[in-house]
């Protein structure tokens, strides 16, 4: 998770004007690592979900986290396809909005992830039988 969020933060900060001489097309090379890390997130997340399905599925915070992760990754894909191997593309207003949205979504993801441990009302599905 730290690699996925960290790389997204780095790209978003660059889009917002930090380190302006750093080429985004070159920086987007790090998306390769980002997608491997994202795959790990989904594998480990699926394992945790299978281990305690009722704990997650009965908690609204889980769905907030899931939506934030999915939308965050969609924005990553959009930014990657816009800037990867295209040094001539300049940063427009849409990219800046996407950068702000990306930062907000990853902060929501981190926060929701931590709050999951404190907000669940059900631990085991056996409670329903």
């Amino acid at each position, binding site marked *: 998770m*730290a690699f996925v969020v*960290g790389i997204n*933060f*780095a790209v978003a900060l660059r889009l917002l004007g930090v*380190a302006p001489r*750093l080429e985004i097309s*070159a920086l987007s090379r790090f998306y390769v690592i980002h997608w491997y890390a994202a795959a790990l997130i989904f594998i480990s997340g699926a394992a945790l979900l299978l281990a305690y399905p009722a704990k997650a599925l009965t908690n609204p915070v889980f769905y907030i986290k899931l939506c934030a992760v999915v939308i965050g990754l969609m924005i990553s894909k959009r930014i990657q396809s816009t800037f990867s191997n295209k040094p001539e593309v300049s940063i427009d207003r849409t990219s800046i909005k996407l950068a702000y949205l990306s930062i907000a979504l990853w902060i929501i993801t981190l*926060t929701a*992830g931590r709050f999951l441990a404190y907000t669940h009302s059900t631990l085991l599905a056996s409670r329903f039988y």
Partner: protein
Amino acid sequence: MIDFLLNFSQATGIYAFMNSPWGWPITESIHFFGLCLLIGTVGLFDLRMMGFAKEITLSELHRLIPIGVAGYLLNVITGTMFLSTAPDQYLYNPAVQSKLFFMLIAGINMMFFYATTAGDVKSGASASPLILRAKIIAGISLACWCAVIVCGRLITYYRPPYHWCFWC
């Protein structure tokens, strides 16, 4: 030590905040936010020094490092909040001790980097011994920060008195 940390926590209001309904998860969220800033800047710099994304100039990527330092400071502040609120759960926890050990190694590694290699790396020097040294330093740094993350996650599973370090 425990009394000192608890007194500090209570005197500064940290203890009351951390024991409020959402104090602990809010602080954990900020702690992880800081960690992501660190990995997103120092981690990328390490990967670049190890030879990834060679078209990026190290001096430009280094401009992101102050953000990583800010993330590290967030981690120090929030980490102190955890430690001072429940010192008995942290001081004698082998996962915490391992985490602090890897942070120490990362810190020494960073000082060695800035003392011996940083200037040449940022100026774009490309001598073979320099490249090898920079790659080793970057590898140690990245491995240490990954170990810090893993140990951080293990803290809750190695709480005293069920788990006890041999020198405690």
